[in-house]
C-alpha cells in the first residue's frame, strides 16, 4: 500500500501546498494524543450511530449535515452515495469549463467538456432515479484548487476520478439489486476511462493511465475504497458534512 500512497503525494501536495506526509502523520498522532487526553476519542467510540446534534455542530458554519444512514443497508443509500460523488464531479468540471486554466488547448477543452457532460448526466440520472429520497444538492468547496493553473486542475481531476473509480469498485458489494449493480458498472468504467485520459494529459508518455499507484502491480487489480474512506477524502471539497459510516455488507 505504501507505493500507492506515494503515487499521489505530488498531486496532493500540489492541491494543498501542505508539508510532507511524515510531518502530517506526526501531527495526526499529536491530535489523537490531544483528543484522547481530553476524553473525546473515547466518547466517539461509543457513538455507534452518529449523534445528529454532535454531527451538526461539526458541520461548517451554516451548512447542514447529511446522513446517508447505513450505506449498504438498502440500495437507496448506495445510490445517494453515488449521487453525492457525481454532484462533486459535475460541479468541479462545470467550474473547470467556466473558468478555463491558462493555456487550455482545444483538445483539452473538448475532453474536459465531454467529461463535464458525462458527470452531469450521471448526477441527473441519480437524482431522478432516487426521487424524493435523494439527498439535497451539495455545496462544493473548491477553494483549495487554483482553477487558473493547469497542473492544479488536472491533478484535482485525476484525484476525483481515482476516488470515484475506487468508490464504485468498493460499493458494488453493498448493492442488492442486479439492475443497480449493472447500472453502477456502466458508470464506473466510464469514470475509469476519464481517469485514464486525465492521467495521460498530465503525463503523456507514461504508464500513469493505469499506474502502479492505483493498480496493484502483482495482481492487476485496481484499488477499492469503502464509504468511510471515500467520504473522508471528499470532505475537504464539500461544505456539508457527510455521514455514511455504518457499513454493512449484504450477507
Amino acid at each position: 500500500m505504501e507505493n500507492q500512497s506515494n503515487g499521489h503525494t505530488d498531486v496532493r501536495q500540489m492541491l494543498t501546498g501542505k508539508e510532507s506526509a511524515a510531518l502530517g502523520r506526526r501531527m495526526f498522532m499529536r491530535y489523537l494524543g490531544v483528543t484522547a487526553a481530553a476524553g473525546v476519542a473515547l466518547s466517539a467510540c461509543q457513538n455507534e450511530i452518529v449523534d445528529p446534534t454532535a454531527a451538526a455542530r461539526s458541520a461548517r458554519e451554516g451548512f447542514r449535515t447529511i446522513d446517508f444512514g447505513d450505506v449498504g443497508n438498502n440500495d437507496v443509500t448506495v445510490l445517494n452515495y453515488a449521487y453525492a460523488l457525481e454532484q462533486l464531479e459535475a460541479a468541479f468540471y462545470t467550474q473547470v469549463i467556466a473558468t478555463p486554466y491558462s493555456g487550455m488547448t482545444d483538445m483539452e477543452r473538448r475532453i474536459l467538456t465531454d467529461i463535464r457532460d458525462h458527470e452531469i448526466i450521471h448526477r441527473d440520472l441519480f437524482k431522478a432515479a432516487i426521487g424524493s429520497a435523494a439527498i439535497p444538492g451539495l455545496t462544493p468547496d473548491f477553494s483549495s484548487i487554483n482553477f487558473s493553473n493547469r497542473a492544479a486542475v488536472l491533478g484535482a481531476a485525476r484525484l476525483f476520478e481515482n476516488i470515484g473509480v475506487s468508490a464504485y469498485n468498493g460499493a458494488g458489494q453493498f448493492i442488492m439489486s442486479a439492475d443497480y449493480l449493472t447500472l453502477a458498472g456502466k458508470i464506473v468504467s466510464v469514470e475509469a476511462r476519464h481517469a485514464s485520459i486525465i492521467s495521460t494529459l498530465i503525463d503523456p508518455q507514461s504508464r500513469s493511465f493505469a499506474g502502479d499507484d492505483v493498480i496493484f502491480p502483482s495482481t492487476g487489480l485496481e484499488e477499492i475504497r469503502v464509504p468511510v474512506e471515500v467520504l473522508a477524502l471528499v470532505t475537504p471539497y464539500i461544505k456539508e458534512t457527510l455521514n455514511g459510516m455504518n457499513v454493512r455488507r449484504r450477507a
Partner: protein
Amino acid sequence: MNLQNILNEIEKVDADVYERLDHVTRRHVFQGWMKKAFLGTAPLAFSAVLNKAYAQNNVVAEVLNFALTLEYLEAEFYNRSLAAGIIPAMARPYYEQIAKHENAHVDLLKGALGSAAVMKPNFDFTAKGTFGDVFTNVQTNYTVAQAFEDTGVRAYKGQAARLLVSPEVLTIALQIHSVEARHAARIRYLRGEKGWITLANGAPQGVYAGDEALSQAGIDLVQLTGLSATAVSEAFDEPLTREAVLAIVTPFFA
C-alpha cells in the same frame, strides 16, 4: 469504533483539523486502518476466498473461467505484439503496462480456479485472415487491441450481476473491470479516438453493438438533461452477454 465520529470530535476541539491533516496523512490513516478492518479480500488471500466461493457455487467458477479465457486472449495478444517488434518506442510503455496487468489477471484467475481452470486455447489473432497483418502493421494491431479492451469492459460488466452470490468475487471482478476500461481508453487515445465510446461507433461492429443506449433505469436522459445523444451514450458503457462476447472472440480461436 467510528472514525468519522472521532474526526468530528477532533473538529470540535480544532476547527481546522481537516486543513491540518493533509491528504497524504488521511490516506495513510484510512488505508492502514480501514482496509484491514473492512476488507477481507487482500489480493494475497484471494485464492483462499475464491476456493471457498466457487466450491459452493458453479456459477462463480463458470464466470471466472469465462473471464480467464478473455484474459488468456488479451495476455497472449500483448505478449506476442511486444515480441513482434512492431510497437514503436512511444507506445511500448502502454503495451508493457497493459501486458503486465493481463498476465497478472491470468495468474490470479488461474491460481484461484486451481484444477477447475480452463486450459489456454490456441489463438489466431488474424481472426481467420480478417486482421492478416496484425503482427506486422501496428495500426491493425491497435485496432485489435482496442476491440479486445472494449469487449473486455463490456464482458465483465455483463457478468457482474451473476456474482451477486459472492460479494468477495464480485469485488475482484470489479477491480479487473475498471483496469480494462483504463486500458481501453488509453488505446483509443493512442489511435486518435475519444477515450469513451460514442453511440455504437467502432469496429468490429459486434464490439459496439447496443452501446448507443440513451435511457438508463427507464429514464430518457436526453430528455432529462437536454444534453446530446452523443454525450448520453458516452456516459455509460453497456454490458454484453456471454453469447455476444463469444461471438466476437470466437474468430480469434484457432
